[in-house]
């Protein structure tokens, strides 16, 4: 009896030890898998590798807030992506939940999926901190956790995002190229206090305030929403009269609408990737709306799922993945390719990432919408 108990305890201890040994990814040397798609954030980005395992896998998306068009399109994109021919065989179960703004509920949902034996969990965190506990739990259970979009302030987990600072730099360079090195510029900012707003702003200013430039920049806050952005642009036009160029972080179609309403001539502009803005660029570029449209794509969810699946198969992955920024300008904008004249203005256009082999067309996403409603 005593021996049996010792044996049982030994066995338990060994299982535990083995479990601990398996825990989480190993930090390895690069280069990583598909380096053109999974671009490391910078030279210091570490590389992770998990034990390869056999598919098909169980994958869950734990969304936080739901209720703006971007999030809804993100969910539809995720569903469309996992139905693709090359992805479907890798996935046995796919689940999406939205937990609202409650951190406990989001962490709980992640923990629940870990307990249910899911292999990978994709999430947009409701807060940049607070995930240490679930990261630990995920590592212990060998679950691949992938935060994207609103990423976490940690380097212990694989994350996916676009470089927001670079978007600001790009926009600044566009205005310098098309306005010149001096003039009066309107900057329409996003949600105050958000890291995305801060990074885009700093990137933009780094170019505009660089050597040889002499711009007068007027700053207003448009919250990334077309309505707000239209209102603050109209106010700025009423006060300042004329601008030589505009950078509108988001809700860009509202900014253009305000120009049209005020009878302001079209000027070079940089902004987000709303379908409405691209329609406007296509329509008014000959009248001077020299537009650049970059996109924080809801399609990031597809890249995140792809990253998770690659990690599960044992590929070497960068800890922080920088997804190439999808950009079009007034010369490359094309109906049916990177914007859709028959779709609503608030549809987010960039959904394909050729370096990653991820292309989800607008009709595919829209088809998901019908299935849901």
């Amino acid at each position: 009896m005593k021996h049996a108990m010792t044996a049982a305890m030994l066995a338990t201890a060994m299982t535990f030890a083995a479990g601990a040994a398996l825990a989480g990814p190993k930090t390895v040397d690069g280069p990583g898998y598909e380096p053109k798609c999974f671009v490391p954030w910078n030279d210091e980005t570490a590389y992770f590798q998990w034990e390869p395992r056999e598919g098909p896998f169980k994958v869950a998306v734990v969304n936080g807030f739901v209720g703006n068009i971007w999030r809804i399109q993100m969910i539809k994109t995720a569903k469309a992506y996992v139905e693709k021919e090359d992805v479907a065989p890798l996935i046995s179960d796919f689940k999406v939940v939205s937990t609202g703004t409650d951190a406990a509920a989001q962490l709980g949902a992640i923990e629940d999926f870990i307990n249910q034996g899911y292999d990978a969990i994709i999430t947009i965190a409701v807060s940049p901190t607070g995930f240490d506990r679930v990261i630990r739990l995920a590592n212990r259970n060998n679950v691949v956790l992938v935060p994207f979009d609103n990423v976490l302030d940690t380097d212990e987990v694989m994350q996916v995002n676009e470089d927001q600072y670079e978007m600001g730099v790009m926009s600044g360079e566009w205005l310098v190229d098309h306005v010149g090195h001096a003039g009066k510029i309107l900057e329409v900012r996003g949600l105050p206090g958000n890291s995305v707003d801060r990074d885009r702003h700093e990137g933009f200013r780094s170019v505009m305030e660089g050597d040889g430039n002499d711009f007068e920049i007027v700053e207003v806050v448009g919250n990334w929403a077309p309505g707000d952005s239209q209102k603050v642009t109209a106010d700025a036009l009423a006060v300042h009269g004329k601008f030589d160029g505009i950078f509108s972080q988001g809700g860009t179609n509202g900014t253009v609408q305000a120009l049209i309403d005020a009878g302001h001539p079209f000027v070079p502009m940089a902004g987000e990737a709303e379908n409405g803005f691209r329609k406007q660029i296509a329509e008014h570029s000959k009248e001077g709306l020299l537009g650049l449209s970059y996109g924080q794509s809801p399609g990031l969810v597809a890249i995140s799922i792809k990253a998770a699946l690659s990690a599960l198969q044992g590929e070497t992955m960068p800890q922080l993945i920088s997804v190439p920024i999808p950009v079009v300008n007034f010369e490359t904008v094309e109906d049916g390719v990177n914007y859709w004249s028959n779709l609503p203005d608030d549809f987010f256009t960039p959904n394909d990432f050729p370096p990653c082999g991820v292309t989800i067309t607008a009709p595919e996403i829209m088809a998901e919408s019908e299935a849901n409603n």
Partner: protein
Amino acid sequence: MKTLRFAIAHNLGLVLAIGLFVVLYAIYVSMHPNYGMNVVLQNGNEALALILVGMAQTMVVLIGGLDLSVGPLMTLVNCFGSIVMAGTGGSIVLGVIACMALGAACGFMNGCIVVYGRIQPIIATLATGAIYLGLALFLRPTPGGRIDGDFAWAFTNDINELGYTYGWWEDLGWFGLIPLQPIYLILIVVLVWLPFRRTATGRGCYAVGSSEAAAFMSGVKINRCKLTAFTLAGFFAGCAGIYLTMQIGSGNADAPQAAEYTLRSIATVVIGGTSLYGGSGGVIGTIFGALVLRSISFIFRVVPESSALGFVASPLLQPFFEGVILLIAVSLGAARTFRVRNRLSLFT
């Protein structure tokens, strides 16, 4: 037998809440692919802060008020906790005590404004809620802070893990699998709520909620009852803040989350069978009310989308179904008013 019937009749709200919870949770358990103690642990983790905020709300509802500051107070204690609980060893214990004290002090302040300022609780706490959220934002303008990872991990886990993490004990068998969250809850109920319920002040709170005038005529110390109820509410909200801090390991002055907790706390109270008119019910019902609320969202995660019930799990329809089930749950609690012959019997 007669006593049992009597007990059930007098706690119909509680019985309904327990019944509803058992049904919903049974659905969840039956569909969960790997049900075990770790799932109970996860459920406890997700539910405990809401339960505690609901208990805080119950205290104020019992005396016939409504407290809109419970969510913001939890958030304030979370931000405060992310600072004072950031050390290691004994300083964490001091931090936890400081957080409890802050919660109780803020609750006491609410009570003073209501009692001595003679302002309705709902208005007074609307104002103080804004103050608490403002202070929370002042302490943590951006989410941050980091409390000791081992502490956060061990004390939001089960008994075994607590031992492993600190090397206090080895595998304790089935006993070690018991999650800590129910233990915290039982401790709070046994050490705080049950003794309080038996005191003259505790009974006085029920009397004040039933009929303040009658209580006054009977010599109940109304001011003392109200102050105690608010202070206890603050204490419970503070405990919620402490647990949230351990759970997320950091502080976040999240205004939408504070508002959500306040609203949900009212729902947990109603589902738990405490009358919004005051004077009837208790925190035990609220615990089950909160569990009902959480069970609804648990189910969404286990319903296979391809099944007959799959449409319930559609991510875009989840808030809708959550609302519908909530409405049904609240209506069940209210339904008993239809069959009473004399409204007074609800409050006896």
